[in-house]
Structure formats: structure tokens, C-alpha cells
């Protein structure tokens, strides 16, 4: 299947009376995710205030609207027209974000478990995590939490059976093929392997969320000293 055929809309359906769900083929695919992002941007530009919010998922786009003002059938037709008019070829990617991480020790309580899972040493886990470039597929769970993929199979440890009550802010973690960064102290079940001094979310920033769907992320190991300096 060509990349373009793969990125075609499979269905458009309601989620209640105030949201329209646009579904692509349900798989973790950069091309499909990029198409969802491009469609979100185009829909916001073309429909303006008619779209109250646009939320991209791994392989979906949801458009929120006021049903007393906007007709769902009209909105669906707009989306189909926009999609049909989209150019062939890959959709644009986002920014490249460098994320310094102090791996292991007190910052990586689950690094040992991930090493056990992978049948390798902790250093190898760090190498394998830091050598990949990850795609940010979506932001969700809490403000600023980036869902990124794809983690090297060797270290793609499943989420923990018992989540932690509180995960420290900045924790870098793995759950299967996904990797993410916890912005605030929330409960969490992913495997924590390090901590970044960066703040994924700050309401006072011009762009509150550090990450956006479509961004490319690289993790860079830094020693504790540098972590402290960057905070």
C-alpha cells in the first residue's frame, strides 16, 4: 500500500453531538499521524471559529464544535474536501527537540528492570534509548505529556503492573514501544529510566507545551552536574 493510500480517511463518525472523529487506519505510523496533523491545521485555517478545538491522536483527528452553530454534516463535507485536496507526498514534520537526560541512579529507579527485560546492561539500555530519534505522535494524559515512538524492541518493556502513586516531574519513561516525559507529579505506570531538567509544560510560556505532534525528539545523556546546571 502506498504511503498516500495508507493515509486516507477510513471513516468520519460522531462522538456525541459536539465532536467529529476522523479515523485513519489504526496503526502507529508516521505517515498517518502526519496526515492527521496536516488535516488538523488545514481544518483550523479553513473553518476558523467553527472548530473550537482540534485534537490529534496516534491515528485520529477529533474536531470539537458548537452544534447549535455548526452543522456536523457540513463540517464532515469540509473535512472530506480538504482531505481530497491534500497534496501527494509526505506531510511536513515539526521541530527537532533536544532533551538532556540524566539517566539512572535515583532518577531511573526502573532502569534495572528494563535492563533485565532486554537481557543487557543498564549502559546498553541508555545507549539504545538515546540513539533513536522519536516522533511525537500526540500530547495527552496531562498538559504537555508527549507520547513518542518507537522505542527499540530490545528495551520496549511493558508498563508496570503496579503504577506509582507519584512520578517525579521530568521523569523520562518507557512503556512498550512508547516513551514519554511526565510533566508533573502524577501517578504513572511507565518504566522510569531518567530525568530531564526541561519542563514539558509551562502555562506562562509563549508555547506552553514544549512538544507538539510531529516533532522529532532526541534524548541526550548528561551527567548530574549538567542536569543541575540546566534546572
Amino acid at each position, binding site marked *: 500500500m502506498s504511503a498516500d493510500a495508507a493515509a486516507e480517511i477510513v471513516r468520519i*463518525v*460522531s*462522538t*456525541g*453531538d*459536539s*465532536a467529529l*472523529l476522523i*479515523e485513519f487506519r*489504526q*496503526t*502507529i505510523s508516521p505517515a498517518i499521524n502526519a496526515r492527521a496533523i496536516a488535516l*488538523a491545521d488545514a481544518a483550523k485555517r479553513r473553518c476558523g471559529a467553527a472548530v*473550537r*478545538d*482540534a*485534537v*490529534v*491522536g*496516534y*491515528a*485520529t483527528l*477529533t474536531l*470539537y464544535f458548537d*452544534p*447549535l*452553530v455548526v452543522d*456536523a454534516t457540513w463540517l464532515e463535507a469540509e473535512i472530506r474536501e480538504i482531505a481530497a485536496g491534500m497534496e501527494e507526498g509526505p506531510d511536513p514534520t515539526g521541530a527537532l527537540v533536544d532533551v538532556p537526560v540524566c539517566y539512572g541512579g535515583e532518577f531511573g529507579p526502573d532502569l534495572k528492570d528494563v535492563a533485565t527485560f532486554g537481557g543487557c546492561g543498564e549502559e546498553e539500555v541508555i545507549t539504545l534509548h538515546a540513539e533513536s530519534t522519536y516522533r511525537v505522535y*500526540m*500530547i*495527552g*494524559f*496531562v*498538559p*504537555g*505529556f508527549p*507520547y513518542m515512538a518507537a522505542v527499540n524492541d530490545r528495551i520496549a518493556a511493558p508498563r508496570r503492573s503496579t503504577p506509582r502513586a507519584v512520578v517525579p516531574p521530568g521523569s523520562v519513561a518507557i512503556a512498550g514501544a512508547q516513551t514519554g516525559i511526565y510533566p*508533573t507529579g502524577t501517578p504513572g505506570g511507565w518504566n522510569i529510566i531518567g530525568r530531564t531538567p526541561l519542563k514539558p*509544560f509551562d*502555562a506562562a510560556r509563549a508555547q*506552553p*507545551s514544549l512538544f*507538539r*505532534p510531529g516533532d522529532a525528539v532526541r534524548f541526550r545523556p548528561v551527567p548530574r552536574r549538567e542536569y543541575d546546571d540546566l534546572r
Partner: protein
Amino acid sequence: MLTTVQDFGRWGHQASGVPVAGPMDVYSHRLANQLVGNSDTAAALEITLIGPELYVEGDLLCAVTGAEFVVLVGGHAVRHTSPFRAPSGASIRFGERKSGARATLAVRGGLAVASVLGSRSTSLLGRIGPFEGRTLAAGDVLSVGEERRFDDAAWSAYPMVMPRSGARVRAMTGPHDAMFTTGALDTFFSTRFSVTSASNRTGYRLGGTTISHAAAADILSDATPFGSVQVPRSGQPILLMADRQTTGGYPKIATVITADLPIAGQLAPGDWIEFVPCTRAAALDALRLQERRLTGRAR
């Protein structure tokens, strides 16, 4: 005490994982604001189950709608769903709650608390909003603003009837209804669920019958609207409410219609809830009817 400042909600930032928050019962929120001559979107207090004690500086015009609390101003009971004066130095005390779960206290001029990302709503989940996104605590001071829509406070209109011990809400099937057995859909629409104690502004965990998936119990995470009903692997449905996460990985069997979200927002742990299938056309009719009740005109 669970009292938070809410306006119409924080829209435009769900793509950054910021919950919309806003009132659990937007009908009562709008009605309270109308009664004191504010625009619908003015910030007000949402008071859950147990009310605060407030002290007033400066003469205020207030109104309480939604859950029926005994409200005492300077020791005297005031009428519900009716504007009342709170003179400088008086206390406003919330006593016994007789029906509903959440009341709105609106003040003429609106609450002039800090606006974050364009809204004065409080998201406890996202820790975003006035007072660092937390519930109000003893000692907090709220300023009153200048926002006004009418020169005279508008008498109104129809309060919403509070649920006595539960409510029947209409819901549009889907979007993941195909992931459930036919039997499961029938069960969902014919069960009297209970709102368990693990229920709050984020969502209500429902007890009663478990709902069965046809095969997979997970989806790739997608957006989760107010009123959508997720069913995780356990089979125990979760009705997502005002302060829900923006996305989720559980299949959604149905979504409560917008017109019935206010009544759902008035349910407390221990109440029952039933779901009734509803088409989009009927959902829109219901919303238009509700709009006429609230504003006296069609929109």
C-alpha cells in the same frame, strides 16, 4: 469542601493536553449569571456537596442555582434561584443540601480571579487555573469584577429540576460500539448503573453490570469528549466529566448528549444513572429546547 472557580471552560488548548474543565452543570452556571446580570461566561463558584462559608466586603448581588442548599446570608435564609443582596460585612453560609450535587454561586460583576490560557476555569487534573489550579481553601480572597451584561439583573426562567436519587440521560451510540458485543450494547442501554464513590469532576466510575468487549479492550489513544463513556478491560464503564483527561486509550461505547450533561453533572456517589439511546437529530432538538428555556429565544 470542594469549591472551585469555573467559567465556561478552557478551550483551544486540548491539543496540548490541557483539560477544558468548566462547570459540571453549565445550565445552572448560565442561569446563576443571568440572575445577577452577568454574561453567561462570567466566572462563578462551583460548590460540591458541602458548601463554604464566605465573608463579604462591599455590597454584592448574588444568586445560587443548581443543587438546593439552605443558604444563609447574615443568618437569614435566601431564596434559591433568585438574586439576593449580600451586604458588606455579612457572611454567606451554605447549610444542608436537599437535592442535586453541585451549586453555582454567581456574583454580579463576575469573579475577577487570574485568567490562565484565556480562562478562569480550574482544572484540578491539569493543575491549571486560578489559585494554582486547586480547590479553594480557608483564607482565599476572591475579587469581584466589573463584567456586566444587563443594567438590571434579569429575572429568569426555568431552573433545571434536580435529580432526586438518579437520572436517565440520553446518549448517542459509538464511536467504538463495534468493539462491543450486541448483548453488551443492549445491556448498557438497559442497566441501572450506580455512581460509585470513585467519582468526581474527572469522571464517574459506574457500578452494576460489566460491559463485554467483542475482542480487543484497547484502542490507540484518541480524544475524549465530555460525556463519552469509556469501557476499560474490567468492563466497568467510566462516564467522563468536565475535568477529564483530553485523550484516552479505552473504547467508547456511547456519548451523553450535550443537553443532558447538566443533569449528569448533578449526580453524586450513590445515585443511579441509566442511558437511553438517542439520535443526533433528537440530541439537537433537545439542545435547542434547552436553549429556549434558558434564554427565551432560539439560537
